[in-house]
């Protein structure tokens, strides 16, 4: 059975399960906080740290209450220096710890880029597998909250391009809870991109069963076109799918979840069925992850595609100020227009 088929069935099962028991209504912030609490309880080698992660509980309160419960040696504040936070994570991992550092906002991963790219991503390789880096780097990511510069950026293509890193982004509280626990249990470094604009939306979290935690997930099955998205764009694509349905267009929404490794099989299965695809991301267009997704789809579905894969993305501009961010982030109209271009495409 293909991963995608599994994912479809799983969605159905999850929806059934939520009507039974097990599930709790949590915001993504609460789900992440609960996941960290459980990781800290289960694994004594885990340490959670970063700027304002201790006493304050993080600027987004993701680590709220964790220092009080688990102690200052497990959950602690660091000086305001991202390279220091990530460089320190390398040393802690070398000493056998499982660090879960936080970079407070996406744009502040740049000051740490040497430690992420040259050190965390390569230490396993450099040491011939003797020094694994089981580091889960939490990065509140993407835009949509009217924040200052460097607080709304999408770095997934940059991270996905680096050999040795894995990249994941949850789109809802259930996945946030389970993917964080899963990422923290793996022996390789994972960049965990949290869609900060979705922190406060609630959803059903079945804490007892996360389902398949690798690969993509079909959030909405459909027949006419596949919308590929991740992070905060998944919810927007779901709104688009509902609107398109009113016009009789049956849109499948595929939450890619893992941005490295990308679930090429799920793309092949979904677009093999729908024969049309639009990929949506907040990051700039050129050399964005949409290009990688489009190539994977072209490779597997070239013979049956009815139109070139369309990309609806941010622009090749620095992330704009809050007043302009609604112009920058793909909105419902732009995604609908992208769908229209694909549907109206004629060969020759």
């Amino acid at each position, binding site marked *: 059975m293909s991963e995608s088929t599994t994912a479809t069935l799983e969605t159905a099962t999850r929806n059934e399960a939520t009507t039974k028991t097990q599930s709790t209504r949590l915001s993504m912030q609460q789900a992440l906080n609960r996941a960290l609490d459980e990781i800290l309880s289960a694994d004594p080698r885990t*340490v959670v740290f970063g700027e304002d992660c201790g006493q304050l509980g993080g600027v987004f309160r993701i680590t709220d209450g964790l220092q009080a419960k688990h102690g200052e*040696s497990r959950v602690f504040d*660091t*000086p305001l*220096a991202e*390279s*220091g936070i*990530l*460089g*320190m*994570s*390398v*040393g*802690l*991992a*070398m*000493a*056998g*710890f499982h*660090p879960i550092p936080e970079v407070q906002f996406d744009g502040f991963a740049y000051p740490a880029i*040497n*430690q992420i790219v*040259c*050190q965390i991503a390569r*230490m*396993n*390789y*450099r*040491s*011939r*597998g*003797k*020094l*694994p880096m089981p580091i889960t780097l939490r990065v509140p990511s993407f835009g949509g909250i009217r924040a200052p510069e460097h607080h709304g950026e999408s770095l997934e293509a940059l991270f996905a391009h680096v*050999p*040795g890193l*894995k990249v994941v982004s949850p789109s809802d509280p259930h996945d946030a809870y389970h993917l964080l626990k899963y990422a923290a249990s*793996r*022996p*390789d470094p994972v960049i965990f991109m949290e869609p900060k604009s979705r922190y406060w939306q609630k959803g059903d979290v079945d804490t007892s069963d996360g389902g398949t935690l690798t690969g993509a997930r079909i959030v909405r099955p459909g027949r006419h076109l596949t919308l590929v998205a991740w992070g905060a764009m998944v919810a927007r694509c779901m709104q688009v799918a509902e609107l398109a349905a009113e016009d009789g267009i049956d849109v499948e929404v595929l939450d890619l979840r893992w941005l*490295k*490794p*990308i679930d*090429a*099989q799920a793309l092949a299965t979904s677009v093999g069925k729908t024969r049309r695809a639009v990929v949506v991301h907040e990051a700039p267009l050129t050399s964005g992850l949409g290009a990688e997704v489009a190539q994977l789809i072209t490779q597997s579905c070239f013979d049956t595609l009815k139109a070139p894969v369309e990309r609806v993305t941010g622009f090749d501009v620095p992330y704009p100020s809050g007043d302009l961010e609604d112009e920058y982030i793909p909105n419902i109209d732009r995604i609908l227009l992208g769908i229209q271009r694909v549907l109206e495409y004629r060969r020759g």
Partner: protein
Amino acid sequence: MDSFLPAVAAADAAPLASEQLRELYSLMAAVRYLDTSAVAWQRQGIIPGYAPELGQEAAQVGSAYAFDTAHDFAFPTYREMGVARTMGVDMVAYMSTHKATWHGGMYDPLASRLAPIQAVVAGSVLHAVGWAHGQTLSGEPGVALSYFGDGASSQGDVHEAMNFAAVMKAPVVFFIQNNGWAISVPTERQVAGGSVAARAAGYGIPGIQVDGNDVVAVYEATRDAFAHCRAGNGPVVVEAMTYRRGPHSTADDPGRYRSLDDERIDAGKDPLERLRERLLAVGAADDAFFAAAHQAARIEEEAIRTGIEALGPRPGTEMFDFVFQETTPALENQATRWREESEHV
């Protein structure tokens, strides 16, 4: 003599015995011979490149001699051959990095207590701090020994590392080999104020500049720094003032930035010669000892060279094998295609 670190008890600061002084000389002789031989290996085409540490034998051997392999962990850059040799690292495995076998060297860093060879010279300084803080969290007595130079001291990671370590009272010995040159740029155009150790005061931690060509002075300062860290007093900065007598690497041409006369004047007295005179003056060694030490160094170099020459390239599959602990489908596909295509050419 009192330590520069008041917290270090006199009992921890016993002077070196004659046997230890002789051991230091033997180590320095072995390092000197291997170092100069490695330059020759490069000229002979045995290895593609090398970064000599000629002149830094006292700084490297003296500091690593204070290291406790049962507890401590050292973080090198790429010019710490003398450190590796003193720590007892497998030298074929260490020198393999210069054979272009594997970037980080073929030695097991955990078993060797030596982090992989590092080319981002300040990158590993923060790793030392993280590792050291891990010792604090685990209640273990290990101390991190972080090696870097005057050039690396310009990088921001060194500031972040010293500040983090001081804030967290992490047991780290920041050991700077100030060898006067960062490739072609002299210390006066690299280190404002002329001293990396002087920065320690700003972090509220002890720092000292020592004569880096006096192996005993280097050893004693590092030993005291270890004792200070191990007692829970936080980090220490030790700056060993030495001189890079050779080129930056076998690809470098120092004639473009310094004259032979400058080298003769600035290098000062050879650290090996200084220890030899000291041993003779205190009657701790005779000519037979020195002859034996040099003979042992030659035999050791020959064995290492034989091992290096015997090193073939690693299997190409290792390019893919060590990227992750858990590989990805995309990487597996690339490895498969590489294998198929390389078999067809």
